[in-house]
């Protein structure tokens, strides 16, 4: 994990995040990755959790092709060609995971995180979502938008940190939260 910080933060939002905040992941961790795209960040996670598994969900067929060829090389990546907005469709393939990493520039990004956490996130699991404030409201201040969006997170989430990824990614805000499934 320490050496990852030496990489260029513009390479991936996750590295930009690591520049601002240190987190540790178990080598056996299971990760659900929503919005995997062509798999740049997925391949990083694959190195971080060599004994774990990454369920990479992507709904666009062009990047999915690249993701499939990547998953043929790296053992612990499972490509899932599904809409992250409809977790019911892929619930039979995914186990409970330790981390949900979300990087989909959608307007209802937070709702998607809620839905997926309800089905797949372990108790005490971690949610890390890269909120693209521009795709929610492009005219307002990102800080304002992010603090409003955080309110929409499920009450079962304990918000740990809100980090603006300036200057590496201007429109993105990282939200880190811990999940408590038993809480009503």
């Amino acid at each position, binding site marked *: 994990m320490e050496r990852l910080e030496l990489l260029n933060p513009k390479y991936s939002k996750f590295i930009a995040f690591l520049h601002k905040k240190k987190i540790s992941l178990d080598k056996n961790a299971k990760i659900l990755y929503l919005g995997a795209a062509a798999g740049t960040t997925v391949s990083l996670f694959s190195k971080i959790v060599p004994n774990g598994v990454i369920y990479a969900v992507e709904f666009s*067929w062009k990047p999915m092709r690249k993701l499939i060829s990547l998953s043929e090389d790296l053992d612990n990546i499972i490509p899932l*060609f599904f809409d992250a907005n409809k977790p019911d469709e892929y619930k039979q*393939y995914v186990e409970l995971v330790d981390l949900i990493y979300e990087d989909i520039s959608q307007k209802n990004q937070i709702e998607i995180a809620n839905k997926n956490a309800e089905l797949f996130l372990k108790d005490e699991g971690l949610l890390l979502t890269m909120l693209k404030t521009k795709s929610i409201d492009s005219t307002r201040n990102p800080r304002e938008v992010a603090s409003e969006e955080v309110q929409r997170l499920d009450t079962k989430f304990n918000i740990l940190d809100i980090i603006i990824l300036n200057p590496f990614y201007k429109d993105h805000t990282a939200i880190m939260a811990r999940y408590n499934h038993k809480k009503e």
Partner: protein
Amino acid sequence: MEHIIETWFGKIKVNFNEEDLNKIERYVRGKYREYAKDYGYDNNSYLIELKKRCIALAKDKIQEEAAEKDRSIIRAYTILKDLRDNSNTLYEKLLDWYKEHFPELKIERDRMLDIIYRYGGRENILNSNENIFISDKIKKSAENSNGIDLSGEEEVILKELSKTIKHILNLEDILNRYIDEKIGELTPNLSSVFNSRLVSQLIYQANGLKRLAFAPSSKIQVLGAENALFSHLSYGTPPPKHGIIFQHPYIKNAKPKDRGRRSRFLASKIAILARIDYFTGLVKDDLIEKIKKEINE
């Protein structure tokens, strides 16, 4: 109580004193690998088999999506759009330059390109014997022209530029013919009422015939007016009355107060025809005639 839960490796039976199926599923999901042992998957083979399944599933779906006929139409349309923009601006720039040299020459685009490509400077026009291309009028104005002189280098540039523009226009023709043909095959009903340019634009904006067929007519009505629509939804500006369908003369030539009503009507007809095209692909002559008549009235 006994429940049956579906997983990728098979249906498993579980016993719980619990009513809420979601909770049970969640519990089982945490122990997929343990349950999978009964089906002969250990920790290693679990992942290998799961990956095999998921890749096969994804490949199938990719095949399906990539093979859809309208993809090639959308591709051709986006290329055509770029080419059109480029050929227009390039032609303007060519004229801008050439008119410094020969401001009196005022002819239509295709002939203009031909003449610049063939002859270049004024002198060559004067010296030519080909009466088909150069009329006496042009010769006369070339003689009395008050434009500046063109250097040899500049002449080469302008000649090559006009050649390039001619090539682009030629490619546009090819693409247009391709789109016409494919649109006719894909949407026999829609394209017999509306011209292929409008139809291809609709399919491009909706991102495929499937989406166009599933779209409500209110969406089709404002397709292509997304900016206006979203500014209406967010800030309450007046809603857009029409998007791409404005191009149709039925709306374009109407009085402003009729346009909203007419675009609603037209959008509903497009929705009907798109659905017939997507789901059956059969030509409904009587319906086409009826709609054409209604539009022309």
